[in-house]
């Protein structure tokens, strides 16, 4: 579905991503991990069209995304940003409705169908009761779910989440990723609104145990290069992680669950 071909990107002449090749499938959660400065956020910025690639391509079903106008690209790729940079004086409903922007006219006129989608997305993210409140009054966890709802009403086949759990406490980290997983595996209703099937999600995550629990596949980035790509058990290997993160790590069998645990030695 989403295919990254030989992608390189640079900030002011400095190479940040080097010849990446991978793809994102419909209905999967691909976790992107790696130490700070590995280029994870840059990857999100390039995929979402903020930063033009230096070379290589990002293709959606064969279409080069760099050549699309912003509105068309926003109909294919939605981004859940970190919750910090949200203007506080809008209501949650207004914020979610802005996710319809790529489908709206210049005046931002909305239709009953738009209202319906917003309603549906807020229901799915359990934010409906927050709708009339100003986002400045919401907790980090609530705001992050509102932003997820905003991405959902873009009804895109691709979701990008840039460290969505960073400012959340444990309970919210789990519930947010559960919701994303649920949307990917049970996309009924909203995802079909623009004729695409189940969406695929690329999630940048720091917490390797969340990765182990939720990801379908894992991509390990080190210094802008793809170090490993595969299933959780293939990529979460002690030697590889220790080398990548520069600290001795062990991967142990979780005594109470099916997923492995990553611990510092």
């Amino acid at each position: 579905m989403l295919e990254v071909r030989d992608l390189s990107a640079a900030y002011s002449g400095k190479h940040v991503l080097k010849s990446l090749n991978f793809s994102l499938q419909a209905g999967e959660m691909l976790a992107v991990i790696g130490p700070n400065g590995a280029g994870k956020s840059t990857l999100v910025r390039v995929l979402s069209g903020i930063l033009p690639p230096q070379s290589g391509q990002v293709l959606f079903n064969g279409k080069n995304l760099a050549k699309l106008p912003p509105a068309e690209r926003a109909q294919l790729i939605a981004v859940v940003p970190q919750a910090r940079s949200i203007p506080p004086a809008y209501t949650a409903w207004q914020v979610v409705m802005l996710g319809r922007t790529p489908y709206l006219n210049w005046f931002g006129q909305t239709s009953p169908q738009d209202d319906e989608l917003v309603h549906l997305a807020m229901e799915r993210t359990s934010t409906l009761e927050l709708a009339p409140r100003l986002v400045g009054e919401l907790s980090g966890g609530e705001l992050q779910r509102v932003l997820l709802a905003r991405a959902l009403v873009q009804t895109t086949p691709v979701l990008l989440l840039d460290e969505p759990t960073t400012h959340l406490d444990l309970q919210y980290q789990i519930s947010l990723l559960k919701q994303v997983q649920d949307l990917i595996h049970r996309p009924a209703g909203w995802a079909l609104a623009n004729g695409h099937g189940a969406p695929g999600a690329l999630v940048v995550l720091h917490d390797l145990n969340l990765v182990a629990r939720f990801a379908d596949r894992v991509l390990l980035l080190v210094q802008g290069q793809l170090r490993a790509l595969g299933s959780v058990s293939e990529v979460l290997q002690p030697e590889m992680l220790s080398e990548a993160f520069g600290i001795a790590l062990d991967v142990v069998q979780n005594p109470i669950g099916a997923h492995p645990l990553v611990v510092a030695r």
Partner: protein
Amino acid sequence: MLAAAMLFSILVGSVPISFAALVEALQSGAETTAGKILFSLRLPRTILVAMTGAALAGSGTAYQGLFRNPLADPYLIGVASGAGLGAVAAMSLRWPYTTLGLMAVPLAAFASGLLTVAIVYALAKVGRAIPASNLILSGVAVSSFATALTSFLMLRSSGELRRALAWLLGGATMSGWQPVLALLPYWAVGLGILLTLGHALNVLQFGDEQAQQLGLPVTRVRRLIIIAASLTTAAAVSFAGIIGFVGLIIPHILRLLTGADYRRLLPLSLVGGAVLLLAADVLARVLLAPQELPVGIVTALAGAPFFLWVLRRSRQASFWS
């Protein structure tokens, strides 16, 4: 409220007109003395003041949204002074006092206003962000520079200095219908564009990156906002001089009253700006009657304390970011 303010503005002045006289004049046309004052002086002035107030508040709202900064105002970020410089430069060329000649003045004001905002923008930018303090500081610096050049031009020109000074302080000293007609096209085009930008401004509040990810052609939209807001400001400055703080006060009050949605904020700010400036103009006419104060003095007397209040507030509260 707008209607009441306009009515007030028509009736009050060095020759007060009673309501009865207004009714009589409306019936008999411009025959009576009151009718003459009414139709050739008061009415055009009232309309000009209302249009100017709407223009200043509308462009103030747009600038605040564009820079995502509660202190942006055509006056504070230097656009008004820049436009003033262009206007004075054009006036010193002594175009004939006709509608067409008058229309050249706002064109020059528009060009130099646009140049000013470009300079301020470039100076204030740090990386990809525009910190509030930088915006105001570079606005003040560029504004002082433009004002100095304007003063120089005025001193050099042989025209009546007092009149130019009064214009610069914001007094609708030009009378009659010609300025209204000359202002109208710029005003209508500028505000017409601004009024369509409510949704785009809403999306822009989330920052350039998110706006782009939401599908907004950010660069194009930003350019359009700057052009429309600067055109509007230039038009207002050309005919009413440099009037500060209207573009600061109105969006603030309205935002507190109606929330952050620019689709509502923009049209309301036009009405609010017109009402505020009409009120200030009436005050300017009656405070030292029969002498008239430049209206810019009145708005500055009320606006400067307001500015300080906003400054304090935006430092404490998480109101904006």
